[in-house]
């Protein structure tokens, strides 16, 4: 090896494995985190709390879609299945057996991961659009099952029994939304931290590899089908967490809403808008689309139910035209391209 090349290798080895983002990005990130922590005391109305709780939960849900679709390249159109499983798991266990929703949260994650295996093992072996079609149809079927299933309240759904004591045990708060806010913040933070770790792990690298080229990935020893199922399981468990928290927040389970295709599609839209495959894209998408939906409901009332979807459509169109890989994609690539010495 020539000396110049040996020198370059030395330089390359001394670089950081993951380049530091530029200062302004770090500063912006720190400011955002600080703002999120003090938010309920800066904005004190119940509506501003409600809005942010939804943004945080949707940010988590959009990230869950991003794990299976953005990282491993498998388009799921059935994420609502796991949202519903999360909500029903904690509520059924609590309403029927008095088990704390914290345990229900874990049971929901487990059941969602198992459902992801049941759906993923037969469908993720196939290439192409079969997985997307299968998840869409299975999602509709699951909704119908829950609407007919008497034991879980059929079409009228379930109520979370109201408890006035031990709020943290029962995971319900009736005097203020602030505890819900911090729970949602904690859930979203845990989800994003987990995905941040995942993306830097061997599994994360392998998922991105099989997304980019399954044949090349297989030629490097990656078991394609097993890795896709694994990504789907992680995605399902994350979605389930959002479902449990959502149930504890609204205290009413409506299968029509929980298992709706609309939820499956909206988490996709958020992720694509912000930048699918990026870490922060789904959060940016949620921060844009949730307020849009909530404010259009306020401004246009009941008749405005679909105005937000029209605006979503226009936004997605614009992103597709100018930045098909999403709002944040360029920023993230700039960081990954940076080679900095320690």
């Amino acid at each position, binding site marked *: 090896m020539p000396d110049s090349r040996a020198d370059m290798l030395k330089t390359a080895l001394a670089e950081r494995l993951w380049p530091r983002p530029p200062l302004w990005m770090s500063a912006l990130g720190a400011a955002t985190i600080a703002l999120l922590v003090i938010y309920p005391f800066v904005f004190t109305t119940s509506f501003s709390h409600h809005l942010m709780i939804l943004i945080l939960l949707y940010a988590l849900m959009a990230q869950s879609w991003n794990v299976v679709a953005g990282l491993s390249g498998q388009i799921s159109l059935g994420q609502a299945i796991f949202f519903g499983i999360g909500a029903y798991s904690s509520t059924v266990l609590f309403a029927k057996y008095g088990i704390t929703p914290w345990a229900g949260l874990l049971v929901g994650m487990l059941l969602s991961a198992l459902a992801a295996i049941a759906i993923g093992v037969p469908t993720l072996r196939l290439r192409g659009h079969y997985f997307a079609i299968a998840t869409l149809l299975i999602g509709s079927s699951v909704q119908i099952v829950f609407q007919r299933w008497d034991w879980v309240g059929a079409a009228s759904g379930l109520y979370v029994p109201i408890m006035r004591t031990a709020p943290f045990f029962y995971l319900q708060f009736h005097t203020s939304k602030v505890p819900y806010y911090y729970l949602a913040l904690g859930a979203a933070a845990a989800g994003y931290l987990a995905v941040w770790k995942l993306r830097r792990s061997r599994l994360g690298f392998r998922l991105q590899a099989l997304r980019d*080229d399954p044949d090349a990935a297989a030629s490097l020893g990656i078991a394609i089908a097993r890795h896709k199922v694994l990504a789907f399981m992680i995605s399902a468990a994350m979605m389930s967490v959002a479902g449990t928290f959502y149930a504890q927040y609204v205290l009413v389970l409506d299968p029509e809403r929980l298992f709706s295709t609309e939820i499956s599609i909206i988490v996709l839209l958020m992720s694509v808008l912000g930048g699918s495959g990026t870490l922060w894209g789904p959060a940016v998408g949620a921060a844009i689309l949730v307020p849009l939906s909530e404010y259009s409901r306020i401004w246009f009332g009941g008749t405005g139910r679909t105005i937000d979807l029209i605006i979503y459509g226009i936004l997605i169109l614009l992103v597709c035209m100018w930045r098909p890989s999403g709002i944040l994609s360029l920023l993230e690539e700039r960081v*990954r391209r940076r080679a900095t010495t320690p």
Partner: protein
Amino acid sequence: MSPLLEVKGLTKRYGGLTANADVAFDVKKGEIVGIIGPNGAGKSTLFDLITGFQPPDAGRILLDGHDITGLRPDRISRRGVARTFQKLKPFPDLTVTENVIVGALARTSDMKTARERALESLAFVDLLEKRNHFARELSTGQRKRLELARALATSPRLVLMDEVTGGVDQRSIAGLIALVVELKQRGLTMVMIEHNMQVIMGLADRIVALHRGRPIVFGTPEDVRSDSAVVDAYLGSIDVAA
């Protein structure tokens, strides 16, 4: 000593088309075996059969005496067989270093070790300069070297190279040949599909010549050069009487 790779009676049909018929050869440790033949002779199909991307209709593939016929590509890779693709398959949305890290992760789960291995591999193919570029930004020649670096990062016992010099300008070919020579000196065993006769005659210890899926010669470059069937397959037979 048993050969590292042994192929016996390998046959693959697509409907009425026979892509490989009764292909047999062996590769000894440390040897370079070349695969030649005109377009459509079944060279890339042969690689797909050996590396598990296609199941053969008949025949057996032995790696170090163990039967690997019909195993999945990832399992064959884990037994130490790496390959490059004729139609290049980089991971376009990963950087050059990240591409090769994926290869190195076949042998280690530690990211730091994987990155060190990846950078060494990139230094070997002289692609360090581009390490922080995205793979989609590379030229064809650079992609070939990236794919080789990625395959080598898996620490293989055997590498199958599908036209490393194809579509590469004359100056870069010399560099790629030097890489192959150095790999051979390090004791790596290689099977190379190669269109460039000059290149393969100089590099290979033995050569398999395929024609319409059938092996017509298996021998040293001299054997192949002097074989009339090979000359016929490439140039068409000359009817002297006419």
